[in-house]
């Protein structure tokens, strides 16, 4: 089953031009619900309301406003917002090539596969050169009126990918936050916790994890549609030990017995 490309562009690496097609590398498998009025099961509509007067405002009558820390509202009209949109273009400009791994996974947003648009040779050569140099690209492009940053990389099987990245303004990094404070931790407790952690260490195997809940939700829905009642599984009460040191000691004993 060949998928349909969702966008076409041209990779620009210095003077080189490589026409490509973008394909989504992920698929949404979530169960979607609609919100309904409980009385008549009619899907609800969202309306914009001015809370003081309860007046309904049409979207076309709205504008945006920025709230300053001094509690001033600064109006931004729709035409002003439109004027900020980037110029449309088909170019995917590669700005830099950095060592693989230099782009932190936290920036990753959505992966796309890249396929050749026309002859396959140029794209294959770019991928081979990236693999030989151990580098991945940092690219920018404009797709559907929105500017994107992306990582250009080769998947394990050599298929090129473009992964959109979040902007620097969007991502909050832990170092900006400050950690919870308190009395110094007990080194013996840390040592026990580290032992427990190392007993639980294993390689990561993505195939091992299945979304079982999705199936259960669909089963529930099917059963209810047929008028069947669902047997409820009572929650298993997990034993919790409030004393940290004791919890760690007993967890270690339990894990060692299991091993």
């Amino acid at each position: 089953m060949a998928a349909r490309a969702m966008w076409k562009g041209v990779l620009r690496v210095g003077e080189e031009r490589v026409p490509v097609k973008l394909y989504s590398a992920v698929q949404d498998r979530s169960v979607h619900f609609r919100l309904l009025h409980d009385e008549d099961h009619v899907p609800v509509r969202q309306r914009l309301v001015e809370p003081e007067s309860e007046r309904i405002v049409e979207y076309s009558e709205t504008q945006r406003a920025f709230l300053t820390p001094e509690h001033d509202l600064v109006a931004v009209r729709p035409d002003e917002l439109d004027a900020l949109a980037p110029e449309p273009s088909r170019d995917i400009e590669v700005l830099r090539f950095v060592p693989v791994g230099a782009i932190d996974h936290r920036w990753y947003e959505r992966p796309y596969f890249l396929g050749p648009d026309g002859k396959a040779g140029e794209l294959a050569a770019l991928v081979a050169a990236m693999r030989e140099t151990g580098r991945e690209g940092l690219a920018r492009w404009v797709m559907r009126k929105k500017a994107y940053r992306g990582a250009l990389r080769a998947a394990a099987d050599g298929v090129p990918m473009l992964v959109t990245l979040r902007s620097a303004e969007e991502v909050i990094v832990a170092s900006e936050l400050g950690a919870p404070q308190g009395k110094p931790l007990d080194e013996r407790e840390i040592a026990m916790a580290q032992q427990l952690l190392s007993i639980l260490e294993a390689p990561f195997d993505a195939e091992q994890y299945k979304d079982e809940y999705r199936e259960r939700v669909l089963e529930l829905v099917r059963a209810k549609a047929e008028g069947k009642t669902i047997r409820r599984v009572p929650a298993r009460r997990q034993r919790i030990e409030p004393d940290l040191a004791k919890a760690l000691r007993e967890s270690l004993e339990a894990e060692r017995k299991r091993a």
Partner: protein
Amino acid sequence: MADEREDGEDLEPIDGGGVRSLWSGSITFGLLSLAVDLFPAVRTEALPLKLVDSSLRPLTRRYMCPEHERFLARDEIVRGFELDDGEFVVVTDDELEALAPEKSRAIDLRKFVDIAEIDPMYFERSYFLTPAENEANRAYRLLAETMERSGRAGIATFVMRGKEYLVALLAENGVLRAETLRFSDEIRAAEDVGLPIDAEADPRHVERFRRAIDALAADEVDRALLRDERIERLRALIDDKLARGVDVEKAPEAEEEDEAEIIDLMEVLKRRLQPEQRERAPAAPQAARHDEGRGRAGADDLESRSKSELYERAKALNLPGRSKMGKDELIRALRRAGG
């Protein structure tokens, strides 16, 4: 999830609501358990703009029944799954939670992996976990310190808002972060898309691209290259209007100094991580909630109440921000209020 709030898909308002925790529950590690709240680590908008009317009055989103032509209260709205014939099967929050009661309440860390082993394709979204209680502080710090020293990520699955998530839990700078990972069946294979695998390349072309790559080589990512120019232009536009006093008006006074009204995610996270330095509200009384999570008997057993029952109680006590609270948050708010 926060970014999937399509019309009629989620109970939360899209704008003007401020930051709220998306899930409240506990992290378990062996017999150790700590109460946490989960917040996004990514702002939905870099520069949040409020939706206002032509006179700059802030707007909120309300749900309306198109048949009855009236606004609906939260408790008049139910979740429905659409069948092929267009009929809806109504599913309650309690039914959804009952499908996986443990996973709805706890992120149980039973496996630790080297984060470098996880293909970046799996990473979906990033969240911060904050200690929900004063008592959780020490266990939180212990877990963060242990994980940071080992450089390992804890792997678990849990259920949040009617959906199961695979997460990698990591510690960085003493803060716990959860990265949701895509399930393997949510990732397509290149073969299925119909793309060539390990395509042959002409060595002369490869050499040309090598030179092009070398010319653009850098050792690390310059964060400046990740800047969103649109946001910078928007900021400049706002600053210019402020400087000239054009299109600026005083905002209507906020009625309550509720955390839910704080728009800035960073500020909320800082308050939650370091409450002793920032919290304006009095801390939760220690004795009142010592037994949480261990199940108490009698009328006071809030855990055994359904979410809608808890919500009703919160409504009766007029607790602020209740419509945005998850089950555990409702329990805690009720305990704090002595209800």
